[in-house]
């Protein structure tokens, strides 16, 4: 009767089993041997050592790319955190970069402070400024917050150009640079690894649970006597820290700050990286950024067609693999899969 249906026609079916050590409850593992420990440790170690050895494998040109890719990875991490764990889709990545960059640049240019002082100060001060400016919009949700946060970088660029402050269109050049290319790379890679580690811990701590609750249902959080604005401020500050560090770092890596720090790329690429890497995994967007940035660098010859490439990748993943790379890989990694005769 049903001979034409594919299920009946198949003589084999694919059987998927969760690996024994992964208990049904998410994130709870029962470890009983080194083999099982290494099963969990190996992917993490691969990522950390992979990142640490990355600079050694590159020629000087590509070492520069590593630095930029790591900054994009930080931005993607911050985007993923805000979007998937707090429910704020923030397209203001360029604003974080710009704030950090200009504060660091101005401190170095006018006061002559060394990058080792300006970068930490710019990271914190920049995050404070970004949070303060986004504060009035924090009660917005979903697409409205996205639109407003997307406008801020453009707004700031136009203010800088129109008023001709902070060097205007020329920017501020001849800033102090970091000691050498190795230091350049390892400082940003170290910050990236630490940020990833901290964020993964944070989302499972109490404060992280409150962030996630705000995403799931902000009205219920208010009904529990907690001010959601206060926690959104904390979340934006944490996310802005990562972006502003990236900006401050880049200003000293290039020895120059200018309006291109507010470029749309910094807002858009993290989204592509998050969609590609897998939203909500934190590590996925980082990997996504580390793949997309070199790819776009390799295609530099095509000029503006690079943006077309972003869009194609974005479209491809949204349509064919909306869960993203990392969610897919994690699932496959945690399951045995084999064919069974029926």
């Amino acid at each position: 009767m049903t001979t034409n249906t594919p299920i009946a026609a198949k003589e084999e079916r694919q059987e998927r089993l969760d690996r024994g050590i992964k208990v049904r409850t998410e994130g709870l593992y029962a470890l009983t041997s080194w083999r099982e420990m290494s099963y969990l440790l190996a992917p993490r170690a691969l990522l950390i050592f992979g990142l640490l050895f990355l600079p050694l494998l590159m020629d000087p040109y590509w070492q520069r790319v590593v630095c930029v890719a790591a900054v994009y990875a930080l931005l993607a991490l911050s985007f993923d955190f805000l979007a998937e764990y707090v429910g704020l889709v923030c397209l203001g990545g360029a604003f974080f970069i710009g704030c950090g960059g200009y504060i660091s640049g101005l401190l170095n240019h006018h006061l002559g402070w060394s990058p080792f002082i300006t970068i930490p100060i710019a990271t914190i001060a920049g995050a404070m400024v970004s949070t303060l400016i986004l504060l009035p919009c924090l009660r917005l949700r979903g697409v409205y917050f996205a639109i407003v946060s997307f406008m801020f970088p453009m707004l700031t660029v136009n203010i800088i150009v129109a008023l001709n402050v902070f060097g205007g269109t020329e920017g501020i050049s001849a800033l102090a640079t970091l000691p050498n290319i190795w230091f350049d790379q390892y400082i940003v890679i170290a910050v990236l690894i630490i940020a990833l580690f901290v964020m993964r811990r944070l989302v499972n701590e109490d404060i992280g649970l409150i962030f996630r609750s705000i995403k799931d249902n902000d009205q219920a959080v208010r009904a529990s006597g907690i001010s959601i604005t206060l926690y959104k401020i904390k979340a934006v500050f944490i996310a802005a820290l990562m972006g502003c560090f990236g900006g401050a770092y880049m200003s000293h890596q290039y020895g120059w700050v200018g309006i291109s720090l507010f470029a749309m790329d910094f807002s858009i690429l993290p989204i592509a990286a998050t969609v590609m890497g897998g939203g909500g995994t934190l590590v996925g967007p980082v990997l996504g950024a580390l793949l997309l940035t070199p790819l776009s660098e390799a295609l530099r010859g095509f000029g503006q067609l690079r943006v077309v490439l972003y869009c194609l990748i974005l479209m491809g993943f949204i349509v064919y693999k909306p869960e993203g790379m990392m969610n897919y890989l994690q699932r496959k990694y945690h399951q045995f899969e084999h064919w069974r005769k029926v």
Partner: protein
Amino acid sequence: MSMGEEALIRVQNLSKSFGGVKATNDVSFEIKRGEILGVIGPNGSGKTTLVNLITGFVKPDAGNVYFGNKKITGLDPAKIADLGIVRTFQIVRPYHSLPAYKNLIVPLNSPRIKRTKGGKSGDRDAVAIDILEEIGFERDAFVPYKIASTLPLGYLKRLELARCLALKPEVILCDEVFSGLSASEIMSMVPVIERLQMEGITILMIEHRLRELFRLVNRVVVLTFGEKLMEGTPEEVVSNQKVREAYLGVETEELEEEEEEEEEEEC
């Protein structure tokens, strides 16, 4: 059942319109300390709006709400919850990506709880699981550890109540905690609510399941078209003719008779 005559919450001449619809029109009543007050009324009679107005989720056009002697009209919902007036939502609002017991971490981290604990955190997970067990989550079946989105409605309604309890409230406003539950689930919820009252919590219950409600409540307020029709004991409410007409519906024969009478009068 011991309870004082002291009014814990006073609602005075509360009004709220949405466009041209008067959702709440000049409603006044009191919730006495320690009682269970039922609020009933047909669909669209303004019951949920009343809860929204008391808890600050909707700002009233006119009128006031007092908690003890403190005016709480139009305060932020978080501030009102912080004072100890908490609510459940008619349409459950779990944090669906978190395990059931982690849903209680939010209220357990609220300023209200942190104040009473003197800033010490303690073992919040254990406290959360104790509260869930008290409200009817079987500990042995690992129900508290399941992700909220996988739980059936009965547990989600309990989770709503548990989240209120975690705040150590003085008043709970229950917005239809029985709706959508089977008869046996309701029977297991009734003692839970009775126990809350014995622990000294004042409760306002909105409910459509009148039989179960009338067993629980001390007094009933009846709303219709946003206005208070009457208040009284369950017996008084059931025997009141106006309530029967508005809420329980009148017999069609009676209606026809009335219409005939009216027509005769007009003639």
